[in-house]
């Protein structure tokens, strides 16, 4: 008791400190042993892993040796075709399907309430814009929203074909859009690459179905201004239906012929290609001595 009293008077804190220190040491030791056990377990697991691998490789080598002795070529073991390869094949085939959709120009996807179609346009190998249509199926087929330009007669085409023949509707709409894209592409190419031959501005409109402009024709080292009016009567066609080429008054005979030739050319070939042939024709003429 007296010891206890002596303790209680001065040494309580010291005693506590000592107990604390002991506990700390014990904890540290325990932690060390735990860590060592963990390490041991890890190394054991590693050993197992490596053993497994070694066995696998051994088996593989044996099989290969057997295979080489037995049959020609490598036998693809179905067990070897990993999930990775299957996934890669799936991705490849999906990409190919998407490419097919892109190439044909019309692709569709089922939505919650209907179908969403996407029409891609192209002109002579160059891909141009795409336009989408969101269709609802119930209670009747109708267009929910779309990104078709407002000057394309979508309502007219829909009124005629949407209820009765969706395929025809898409085909007619695709024709309109592709022809428009083609006409616009020709006009843009003309302005971009042959602006030096054009006098003044190229008068065009939203549908690009009427083009009026003046261009220079050089003949015998003199330039003559020609005026041309291209009317594209068929909205599904990217070539003009009506071409009027006018020369300046009192033209020399050869010039009238050139005008007729140009008129014919514009009716048959793309606008920018026609102009390209002019410049190459000029070059060949100038080249001649």
């Amino acid at each position, binding site marked *: 008791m007296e010891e206890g009293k002596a303790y209680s008077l001065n040494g309580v804190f010291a005693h506590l400190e000592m107990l604390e220190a002991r506990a700390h040491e014990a904890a540290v030791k325990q932690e060390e042993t735990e860590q060592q056990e963990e390490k041991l377990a890890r190394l054991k697991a590693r050993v197992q892993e490596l053993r497994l691998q070694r066995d696998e490789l051994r088996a593989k080598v044996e099989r290969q040796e057997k295979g080489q002795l037995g049959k020609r070529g490598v036998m693809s073991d179905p067990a070897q075709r990993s999930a990775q390869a299957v996934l890669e094949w799936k991705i490849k085939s999906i990409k190919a399907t*998407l490419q097919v959709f892109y190439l044909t120009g019309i*692709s569709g996807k089922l939505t919650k309430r209907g179908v*969403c179609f*996407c029409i891609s346009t192209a002109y002579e190998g160059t891909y141009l814009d795409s336009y989408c249509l969101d269709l609802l199926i119930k209670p009747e087929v109708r267009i929910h929203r779309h990104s078709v330009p*407002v*000057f394309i007669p979508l309502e007219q085409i829909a009124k005629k074909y949407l209820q009765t023949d969706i395929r025809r509707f898409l085909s007619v709409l695709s024709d309109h859009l592709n022809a428009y894209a083609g006409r616009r592409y020709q006009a843009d190419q003309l302005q971009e690459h042959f602006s030096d031959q054009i006098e003044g501005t190229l008068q065009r*409109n939203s549908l690009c179905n009427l083009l009026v402009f003046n261009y220079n024709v050089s003949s015998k080292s003199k330039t003559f201004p020609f005026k041309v009016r291209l009317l594209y*009567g068929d909205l599904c066609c990217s070539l003009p239906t009506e071409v009027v080429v006018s020369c300046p008054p009192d033209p020399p005979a050869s010039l009238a012929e050139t005008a007729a030739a140009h008129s014919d050319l514009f009716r048959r070939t793309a606008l920018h290609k026609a102009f390209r042939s002019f410049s190459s024709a000029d070059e060949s003429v100038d080249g001649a001595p």
Partner: protein
Amino acid sequence: MDETVAEYIRRTVLKIPRDEIKTMLQKWGFLSEAQLQTINFHQLKDNISQDVVQLCEENSADIKQAAVLDIIYNYIYPNKRVWSVYQMNKTGEETDFFDLTDFKKKIKRRLRSALKNVTVTFREYEDNAVWIRIAWGTPYTKPNQYKTSYVVYHSQTPYVFISASVLKSNLPLLCQALVVASNYHDIREMELRSHSLNSLKDIVFKRYSQNFQTYYPKPLQERDIAPETDLRIIQENKNEKERIERVNREIFGDGPQPKLEFAQYKLETMFKSDPKMDVLDKKEPFRCLVKFSSPHLLESLKSLAPAGMADAPLSPLLTCIPQKARNYFKIREKKGLFPGSFVSP
């Protein structure tokens, strides 16, 4: 040169921000490059405009050229005016071969035959848009160049954008001229108004981003994954947040919204109260006008649900604005799911 023309040019130049004056004068093309070199564009705008007027005097400018400068200014700064959208109808199905020269001739003829004193100026732009500036006069007074109407028309479309002047009385004449010149039958004003001309165009020409579900290979947009700054913070409402984002994206699309300043809802619905309370003696519609204004209304509506200020999805009355192409609504009683916005012609 006429005094009024000189004054008009001076005032137009004063409107232009100083850094833009030279480029705009170059676009105008009335003063030669040599003449423009003689102007010091670093002095006070007052002095710049005086110099410009001096040079215009040398070139004998008349009101036609001054009007072109005004069109150029309004083309570059269209948001200073309020634009209304008008829709035209036609019954025929013939293809329209819009001939610009023909169009301009018809408009001029129509306006000049009705009003002798009117200044009509045209300017065409690359996007197939024709800008028409009209200064109105009366049979007895010269056209007032400061009270002008502007018309923007894209060929072969049924929409016309008009920024009318204060003189509303000339609007019917203008509408008639447009209908005749563009080969349509009639024209009506849509309930769509804004300062931002391009946004109005985006709405009616459907150029705003609509989310179409297609297989068209679009490059995957990297969505910003907000960096988890502190792992101790756990988002309890993560599912709800994601749902709101998804619903918002479905409704508003991914791209920027057209810029509108307000949406106005005129309510003509019956006041719904507890029948016992009987607030109104007579059962008549409770007239009420609700107006939402914002520097950018649609963007602010888009951010309401993610900010937690409204439930997603938002009321269709708010989200239908771009698709219905209107920002003025009249809501009447309808026996249905929600009060239909019946268009009053």
